[in-house]
């Protein structure tokens, strides 16, 4: 089996990049090997959205997911983490099919305005997810999975142990 054929059978995952654009902004980019309308569909239909928004590695589970994807429409996501429950909610501010969504995060005062754009290029989609926070402090506090990640220090713990292995040796 040559290398080309092998890569066709098991396509490489595209890379997710994260960049802190400014004190109040963070930008995540990722390419998907599908047309924009499909990525948009997976983002805006609750039965699909709930399949990917809460990866197992977060230790959280999604209890309910309501999304009324139109300008002025609301969304509400309820999560369970261990014994505690929390909800995230907000309003859609812009909805441009297959290309752009803007929504607010209203569960806390430091909530960001999130914008996601879908740009199709040769059958692939460049997705750019952008969060603008009211202040630098709000972004710092929300890093990771909103405030819920505060409780997942254990995961960070493991990560830092890996990252810090070099420090321990020195």
């Amino acid at each position, binding site marked *: 089996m040559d290398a080309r054929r092998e890569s066709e059978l098991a396509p490489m*995952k*595209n890379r*997710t*990049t*994260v960049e*802190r654009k400014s004190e109040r902004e*963070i930008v*995540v980019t*990722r390419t*998907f*090997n*599908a047309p924009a309308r*499909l*990525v948009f*569909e*997976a*983002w805006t239909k609750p039965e*699909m959205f709930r*399949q*990917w*928004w809460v*990866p*197992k*590695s*977060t230790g959280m589970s999604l209890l309910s997911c309501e999304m009324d994807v139109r300008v002025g429409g609301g969304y509400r996501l309820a999560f369970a983490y261990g014994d505690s429950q929390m909800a995230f909610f907000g309003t859609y501010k812009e909805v441009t099919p297959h290309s752009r969504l803007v929504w607010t995060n209203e569960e806390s005062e430091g909530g960001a305005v999130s914008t996601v754009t879908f740009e199709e290029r040769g059958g692939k989609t460049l*997705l750019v*997810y952008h969060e603008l926070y009211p202040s*630098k*402090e709000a972004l*710092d*506090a929300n*890093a*990771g*999975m909103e405030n819920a*990640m*505060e409780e997942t*220090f254990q*995961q*960070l*713990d493991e*990560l*830092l*142990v890996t*990252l*810090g*292995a070099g*420090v*321990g*040796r020195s």
Partner: protein
Amino acid sequence: MVQYTQARFDASFAALSDATRRGVLEQLGRADASITDLAEKFRMTLTGIKKHVGVLEQAGLVTTEKIGRVRTCKLGPRRLEEEAAWIERYRQLWGARFDELDKVVEELKQKEKVDGRKKRE
């Protein structure tokens, strides 16, 4: 050595779990400050702020130096590591999310292909 490293990380997490201490790190990220400056900024007593700075110092996040009667605080050597961990935490979440989204999109793509074939038949 692993034990030592673990203890250091535990100290960092404890240090970062408090909003005032995160605020102190933010402040010191902008400029060095004296204990008095910090107490004013965070509207705390000198004793209160000293306790917080002590926790940060133990975690290696802050260093202090007393010159004359003024104790100056600055960010410690561990700051860059924390910053990297912060971004990494974010990247892990979105990386995991988007890998899952990939699967959903792939299913949609396959379904469309099958539907297209059915229509032609």
